[in-house]
């Protein structure tokens, strides 16, 4: 009994921390990718270093995500099966926000595969798919805030805030710098990058930033052995 509690807690700790690190790495990947596309030059550092860094950090993020997903699935409290890793629907544990996270992971795999096979695709196809990275990043943030039991802590909110600022600033620089004169595209990009972070902050303040958020979710599983194990999230949120 004691061991199983310890076990679930360890799994949950690893899931949470690897999730945070994965988000930080994804943020770095996005910022590096955007600035590489902008041909940003920092002092005398060759630009190719940033391109290499973009690749390696993206792969590192995938490793962290593998750990994140593994520990989440193995955690007996969440009652997730192995299909959870790829199938975004029909979860018992926080279905919506978990589904968003799984969707982000699936899209990330699509980007990984198309990037590895880039020389077999049209450059424009690859590039269009690569634009999904922004969606993936937003999904990752929403998944983290929505699923995480830490979301109301100031350290967690600080991490999300830093990530949001970093991505928003680099995207704004990219739009300001862009040669695209298609006014509609420019305008919608501006509108989106102003509106989306605003919505995200509003939603965070109204939901995940409140300590009651993590208490609202109780998995609808009636198996007795699950009941006997106190969930780490309940323990944190309650008592």
């Amino acid at each position, binding site marked *: 009994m004691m061991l199983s509690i310890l076990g679930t807690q360890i799994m949950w700790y690893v899931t949470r921390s690897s999730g945070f690190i994965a988000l930080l790495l994804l943020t770095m990947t996005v910022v590096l990718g955007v600035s*590489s*596309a902008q*041909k940003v030059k920092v002092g005398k550092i*060759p*630009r*190719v270093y940033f*391109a*290499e860094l973009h*690749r390696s950090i993206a792969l590192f993020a995938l490793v962290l995500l593998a750990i994140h997903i593994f520990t989440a699935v193995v955690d007996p409290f969440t009652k997730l099966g192995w299909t959870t890793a790829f199938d975004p629907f029909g979860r018992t544990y926080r279905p919506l926000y978990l589904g968003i996270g799984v969707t982000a992971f699936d899209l990330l795999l699509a980007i990984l595969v198309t990037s590895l096979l*880039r*020389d077999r695709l049209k*450059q424009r196809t690859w590039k269009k798919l690569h634009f999904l990275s922004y969606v993936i990043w937003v999904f990752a943030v929403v998944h983290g805030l929505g699923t995480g039991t830490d979301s109301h802590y100031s350290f967690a909110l600080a991490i999300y805030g830093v990530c949001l600022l970093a991505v928003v600033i680099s995207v704004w620089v990219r739009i300001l710098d862009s040669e695209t004169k298609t006014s509609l595209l420019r305008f919608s990009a501006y509108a989106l990058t102003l509106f989306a972070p605003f919505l995200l902050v509003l939603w965070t303040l109204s939901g995940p930033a409140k300590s009651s958020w993590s208490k609202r979710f109780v998995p609808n599983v009636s198996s007795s052995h699950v009941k006997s194990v106190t969930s780490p999230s309940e323990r944190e949120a309650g008592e």
Partner: protein
Amino acid sequence: MVSKELGRGALRFEHQLVIDPTVCDGYGYCVELLPSNLIFDDWGYPIIKERYVDDEHLELAYRAVKLCPKLAFRVNKIRGR
């Protein structure tokens, strides 16, 4: 440059750089990786100084193929003279 002599009758290969100038956007990764073969022009686009890649620079050349954002940079492997 012609690869090392391997003995009589052995196949020799040369590795030749090819840049598609209509696709190149001047990211400059290839020039930064292969300064022995490429130089920048005044607008930051690559100019091929030496078309044949030494064996010691081959890995860097394939790195540049992988990293070129526009897929404008290639290495062709051809039968040696």
